[in-house]
């Protein structure tokens, strides 16, 4: 019996070998860009072309990082990306959960119809709206400001998606909780703030990650609305730097590491939430 079992396990292990080979190969391919990025970011400019390629740079040139920071207003790009993403996230969570609660729980005339209409606009490609939006923003003097990058995602397609996610969550909360509070004479706003919002923490966490990442990585909108260097977000600044710097790869890689590393660290501590949050894109299209 035991021999049989271990033979089975052995066979299982051997059968898993091709699986592990595939998984290892794909994982290595996924990691190489990051390793190479990190390695190049610490190389002397001359070492970049050295053959055979060296993974561990010698000497290690930390100065690449300070070079990047002094050669461009990197702290501004960083700050722009962080504060825009933070405002978009806060705004989306607030307005989307408010509307999501109303759609899920308040019976009001036209609610379902409006919800369906909102839902159907989620598939409108941003690229179609971008041209009139550019002219609109120009007319109200918002070009080359951060306002379109903050306002459009909160109240546009991103907000609509948030409503959908929050509504689905609120629908799953038992009605009894609310009814008890209603009998006690609580107003809708109070029920929303003191009962529903605290319950919605998991859904909000997912929405926060999704919204923050979408804003943080957004490229098309900043490209259209921002001209001044000081106002650029990280992705836009990096893309401009790519075209300007030609082949100073070591500096470009230092900048890329600085733009990527903080998020990667957060990701490793909250993987489950991140994967859930990003997978919501699957619902979106």
């Amino acid at each position, binding site marked *: 019996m035991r021999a049989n079992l271990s033979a089975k396990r052995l066979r299982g292990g051997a059968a898993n070998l091709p699986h592990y080979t595939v998984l290892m190969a794909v994982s290595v391919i996924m990691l190489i860009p990051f390793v190479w990025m990190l390695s190049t970011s610490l190389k002397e400019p001359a070492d970049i072309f050295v053959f055979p390629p060296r993974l561990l740079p010698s000497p290690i040139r930390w100065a690449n990082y300070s070079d990047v920071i002094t050669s461009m207003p990197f702290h501004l790009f960083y700050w722009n990306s962080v504060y825009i993403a933070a405002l978009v996230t806060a705004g989306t969570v607030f307005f989307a959960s408010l509307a999501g609660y109303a759609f899920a729980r308040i019976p009001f005339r036209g609610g379902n119809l409006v919800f369906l209409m909102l839902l159907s606009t989620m598939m409108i490609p941003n690229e179609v709206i971008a041209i009139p939006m550019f002219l609109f923003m120009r007319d109200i003097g918002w070009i080359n400001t951060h306002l379109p990058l903050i306002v459009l995602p909160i109240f546009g397609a991103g907000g609509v998606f948030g409503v959908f996610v929050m509504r689905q969550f609120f629908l799953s909360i038992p009605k009894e909780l609310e009814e008890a509070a209603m009998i006690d004479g609580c107003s809708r706003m109070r029920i929303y703030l003191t009962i529903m919002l605290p319950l919605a923490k998991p859904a909000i966490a997912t929405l926060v990650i999704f919204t923050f990442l979408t804003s943080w990585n957004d490229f098309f909108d900043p490209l259209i609305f921002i001209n001044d260097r000081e106002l650029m977000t990280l992705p836009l600044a990096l893309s401009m730097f*790519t075209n300007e710097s030609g082949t100073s790869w070591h500096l470009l890689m230092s900048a890329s590491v600085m733009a990527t590393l903080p998020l*990667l660290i957060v990701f490793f501590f909250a993987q489950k939430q991140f994967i859930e949050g990003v997978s919501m894109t*699957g619902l979106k299209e």
Partner: protein
Amino acid sequence: MSSMERLETGMARRRSKKKASRHSRGDHLTGWLFISPLVLGFILLLLVPLGMALYMSLTDWPLLGQAHFVGLDNYTSIISDQEFWTVLGNTLYFAAGLVPLNIILALLLAVLLARNIKGAGLFRTIIFIPVMTSLVVWSIVWKYMFATDSGFINQLLQLIGLTGPSWLYDTRLAMPVVIVTSLLKNVGLNMVLFIAALQQVPVQLYEAARIDGAGRIRTFFTITIPMITPTIFLTVIMTIIGSLKVFGQIYVMTQGGPSGSTKVLVYTIWEKAFKLFEFGYASALAYVLFIIILLLTLVQWQLRKRWVLHES
């Protein structure tokens, strides 16, 4: 019943009715109040621009000055423009390359990881990292990996005595490079969606298949695939839509070159609108994209509706 009593019950009824209607009127107001910021945004930032883009596509809208109504001129010139067909062809080439590779690789990885083998969590995490990395950063790094002289790929090739091509400067190779870069960026997303779907398949089905003596490959094609077909279809459509909108990696890696070989639809829309300021033509082009995506979305909704009904 005395008239007094009748009066009282009538008043009570009226009162309770009044109370109920006041309550629902309150709900009505609160409901609209709660959704009003988003409804306003939806009208001003989605519906109006959508209509506006349609109108602009029927004009010769310039950067400054008066626009003239030109009817369908923009659309007819798109159709007769050789560049449009090249661009559409490039976009379809990208989609045709990316979608099957993405779905097959994602499915393969999901099947390998759904069975909770040792280290599954770690592999899943690693494969998912590019999904949350900025597309711009990912494209920059791969542009560097494929650089002709100092790129990692060509240095590897040199190690085994080969001279690598100048990938992104070769009209035949640039698009495949962009496709591979995009594949690696996004395969983790579909993988995660497939893992979720695979974990929904009832274990009893697999057990029954094993008792019936079905092998692994047979089980995969007769049980696994049919059970997750809804997810596969939805993922395929989602990936097609995504690939029709490809922009960032093209902008960073090739700028549409060499000699237009990677120029895709959205890149052309961006170029026409925001570099050449031909807003009318660009809007018409954007509407062509919109209609293609609309059709795909309708197919998707139809499928989703059928499957949801089917499941319940």
